């Protein structure tokens, strides 16, 4: 047994270092770095490039990759991105790091080349020396992991808690402005924090490479497992994060020892251990009826007062529920209407192969609408919409092909099953806070991907499942119009929702939890309902995609790919139904155009651009395209309203309140915004 405990400490040690890096970064910056795995992959790939592909020695390669490239990447990312995220809502912070999660592997592929690397060296010289400890064989790579864990805990906890640097870091989390006034450069401290963070990521990557190889998806799964330890530590406790990380490694090793090796379920239980930890922690928290505390505001009153607040919103424009005025409505809906008309003309304009792609684009557009609903309207970041799409696709195939159901009825049932799953995940996670929703949905997606989508009956010896189109769909063109019709129906539902009492209530919920509850609106009911409806939409979209593709190949619904989908939509516009159709067309057509007319290496440019686009959510929360569209519309309205007197809020508070507006100099719009929680 000791042998398995010691062996488990290796994987546990890697979990521990990753979770320590995540906790330290979150504690010091208020940002949970979803791109930690991507950073780990990038540095590990760079180390492999230097050490294996260019024959550098271990030490110089490690120093350059982990000790120099990692911190430089951290400082660079802080300078161009993270420094602008500090006062943004948890949602925008997650979206920006999700953008990095998409962009960094694409960048790595462009720089270092593609192709999965199954065997990668660690920090020990090869052949790796094996020692005996209490009769248990331990490799030098294992010993290096143990040393790194101890160093991480001692240095991480020690520096944060007992040194002046740690004091400055903690002070800066409370108030960068006050820290600045005290003579400490907040940018220097924050840049240092991110340098250390990416150093940890690089260390994790190089240590993990001998175990999992060099594959960005595997790194994402590894870090998702580390998220279990981070969740158990409530994001902040370094000892608990490290302890749970080590225990998960030991549990994995013991499960490998004691579970029957010939059972298919054994492997799946082992893979599921981090997710079981998450489920236990969430259930325990729910039973205690508490939030996990992810909504702490970063910075003090001074910081909020001096920070421009307009960018701290995601999809923060007014609900439009009670908007009136024909010009306003026309200018708002004319663009999307014309876009739908143009999209409708597309299957008639293009021919052959491209018609099928258009149908696929419309199916993707339906899936993207699920984010328009859950994130654009609901203000929640769900990272498992692709999983719901997969559930819809598999259900469609099973019911239609295996059981002979009418295919559209099978699509509907697939949507309903996805909705029920969304309901359960929502009930488990929403009460805990926005950040936990993102974490839980990401891990749920990976769990289903690894445990359900890999079942032999679905994989079907690598052939996947087949789906036949409805009998009336005699061509791709008919399918395209069928999908477009379904898209329009769902889009109209979302538009109606936005302008309805339900939309008002949802808007209330996302802006102020206590405000909504004391107005009589149930936050949990509203959020769970919207999330479940979004899962329904994703499930339907998945079913449509299955019909278009005829075959559901294994890997079609990988969680990481879903993150790319999200990045596409965020780039274009998370709140606009029209953006969903542009996103669908972009996601399908840009790679196809690149493949058809450009050199092969350009195939990684679209994911890189989408990743960078998602990062731009920090500046344009509604999406770059949506932002341009809104500016155009505002200019139009301004031209039309030129005859009317300008609206000056400070003088509009009525005769009795005129002095109030002027007198409360500190009570300007900034104060009003600052006191409300961003969604």
């Amino acid at each position: 047994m000791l042998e398995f405990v010691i062996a488990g400490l290796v994987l546990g040690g890697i979990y521990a270092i990753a979770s320590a890096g995540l906790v330290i970064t979150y504690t010091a910056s208020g940002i949970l770095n979803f791109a930690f795995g991507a950073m780990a992959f990038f540095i590990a790939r760079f180390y492999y490039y230097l050490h294996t592909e260019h024959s550098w020695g271990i030490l110089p390669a490690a120093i350059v990759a982990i000790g120099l490239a990692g911190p430089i990447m951290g400082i660079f990312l802080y300078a161009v991105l993270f420094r602008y995220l500090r006062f943004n809502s948890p949602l925008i912070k997650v979206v920006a790091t999700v953008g990095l999660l998409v962009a960094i592997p694409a960048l790595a592929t462009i720089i270092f080349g593609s192709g999965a690397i199954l065997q990668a060296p660690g920090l020990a010289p090869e052949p790796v020396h094996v020692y005996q400890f209490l009769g248990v064989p331990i490799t030098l790579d294992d010993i290096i992991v143990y040393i790194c864990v101890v160093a991480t805990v001692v240095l991480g906890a020690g520096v944060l808690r007992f040194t002046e640097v740690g004091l400055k870091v903690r002070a800066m989390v409370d108030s960068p402005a006050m820290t600045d006034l005290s003579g400490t450069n907040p940018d220097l401290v924050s840049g240092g924090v991110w340098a250390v963070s990416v150093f940890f990521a690089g260390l994790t990557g190089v240590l993990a490479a001998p175990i999992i190889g060099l594959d960005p998806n595997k790194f994402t799964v590894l870090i998702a497992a580390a998220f279990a330890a981070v969740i158990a530590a409530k994001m902040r406790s370094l000892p608990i994060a490290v302890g749970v990380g080590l225990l998960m490694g030991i549990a994995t090793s013991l499960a490998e020892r004691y579970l029957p090796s010939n059972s298919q379920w054994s492997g799946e239980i082992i893979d599921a251990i981090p997710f079981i930890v998450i489920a236990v922690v969430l259930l325990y928290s729910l039973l205690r009826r508490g939030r996990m505390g992810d909504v702490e505001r970063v910075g003090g009153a001074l910081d909020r007062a001096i920070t421009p607040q307009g960018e701290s919103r995601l999809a923060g424009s007014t609900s439009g529920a009670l908007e009136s005025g024909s010009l306003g409505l026309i200018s708002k809906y004319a663009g999307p209407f014309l876009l739908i008309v143009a999209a409708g003309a597309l299957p008639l304009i293009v021919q052959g192969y491209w018609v099928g792609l258009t149908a696929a684009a419309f199916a993707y557009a339906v899936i993207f609408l699920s984010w328009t609903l859950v994130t654009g309207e609901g203000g929640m970041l769900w990272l498992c919409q692709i999983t719901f799409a997969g559930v819809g696709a598999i259900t469609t195939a099973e019911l239609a092909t295996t059981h002979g159901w009418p295919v559209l009825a099978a699509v509907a049932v697939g949507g309903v099953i996805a909705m029920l799953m969304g309901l359960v995940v929502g009930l488990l996670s929403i009460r805990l806070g926005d950040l936990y929703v993102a974490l839980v949905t990401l891990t749920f997606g990976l769990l289903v991907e690894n445990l359900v989508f890999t079942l032999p009956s679905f994989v079907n010896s690598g052939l996947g499942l087949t789906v036949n189109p409805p009998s009336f769909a005699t061509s791709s063109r008919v399918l395209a119009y069928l999908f477009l019709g379904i898209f329009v129906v769902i889009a109209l539902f979302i538009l109606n929702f936005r302008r309805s009492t339900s939309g008002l209530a949802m808007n209330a919920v996302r802006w102020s939890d206590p405000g909504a509850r004391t107005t009589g609106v149930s936050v949990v009911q509203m959020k769970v309902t919207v999330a479940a409806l979004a899962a329904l939409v994703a499930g339907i979209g998945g079913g449509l995609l299955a019909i278009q593709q005829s075959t559901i190949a294994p890997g079609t619904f990988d969680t990481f790919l879903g993150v790319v989908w999200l990045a596409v939509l965020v780039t274009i516009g998370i709140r606009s139904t029209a953006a969903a159709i542009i996103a669908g067309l972009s996601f399908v057509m840009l790679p196809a155009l690149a493949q058809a007319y450009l050199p092969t290496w350009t195939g990684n440019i679209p994911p890189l651009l989408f990743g960078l686009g998602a990062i731009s959510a920090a500046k344009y929360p509604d999406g770059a395209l949506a932002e341009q569209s809104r500016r155009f519309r505002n200019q139009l309205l301004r031209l039309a309203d030129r005859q009317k007197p300008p609206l000056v809020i400070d003088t509009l508070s009525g005769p009795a309140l005129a002095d109030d507006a002027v007198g409360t100099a500190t009570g300007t719009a900034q104060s009003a915004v600052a006191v409300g929680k961003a969604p």
Partner: protein
Amino acid sequence: MTVLEAGVGTETSVLSARGITVRFGGLNALSDVDLDVAPRSIAGLVGPNGAGKTTMLAVLSGLLRPTQGRVWLRGEDVTDASAQARARGGIARTFQQPELFLGLTVREHLVLADRVHFAPRRLWSDMLDPRSLLPASSAENERVDGLLELLNLTRVAKAPVAALPLGVCRLVEVGRALAGQPHVILLDEPLSGLDMKSSENLLSVFQRVVAQTDRDVSLLMVEHDVAAVLALSNWIFVLDFGERIAADCPDVIRRDPAVRSAYLGDEESVEGEPEVPVAGEGGEVEP
């Protein structure tokens, strides 16, 4: 037992609390606090910083569950009811830092609260009902317009609240609270951050609200501006270190040695004359 306290848990008091105790770890934020609010009255809840006033409002509004104690709304035990259930039952509140919905306009705040009260099913049925695109009913418009007028908010009705100054934000919160047709409104430091003129305007609104003849509305106000609270309230509760140290009419509270001690310290309370401000003297008492 006073007249106000006679109606514990019955319809005599619109809102009652008995034995409210809240512990945060080893800290007793509230210890065995009793409180009653009579119909059509203004009650003040005062005390130095850290006395437990905001915690008490959180317990009464359902945002925080007490470690011990019970809360009644118009005779009905609501201790185990959620905040939204209490809101629908008739408890509304405002916050020290306004908790507004920054994506909505002023009018939309009032419309939402109005519909939660008069048409709660629309929160769900509107999702699938295109009729929600039609203009609002005349009754709803009348109620909302009336409130906007009462609070001098008509001219900013279509403005997003994110663009409004603090004083107007406080009025919007009061309007949202009133739109839900509450029996009692809990006001958490409504005058905080306002200048004297704005405070006077807001206080006059409170008086008008309670004086309305067509509805019974009571107010429970937490406020550091003791002079304003004493001038406005029918009854005052004083908390100190989580305990209720006094509950009486404003005139008695002004002379209460325990209150003077809590605000000014033991030495001054022994040596000096009553120092708790009286109406018209203004000024905020900082303990």
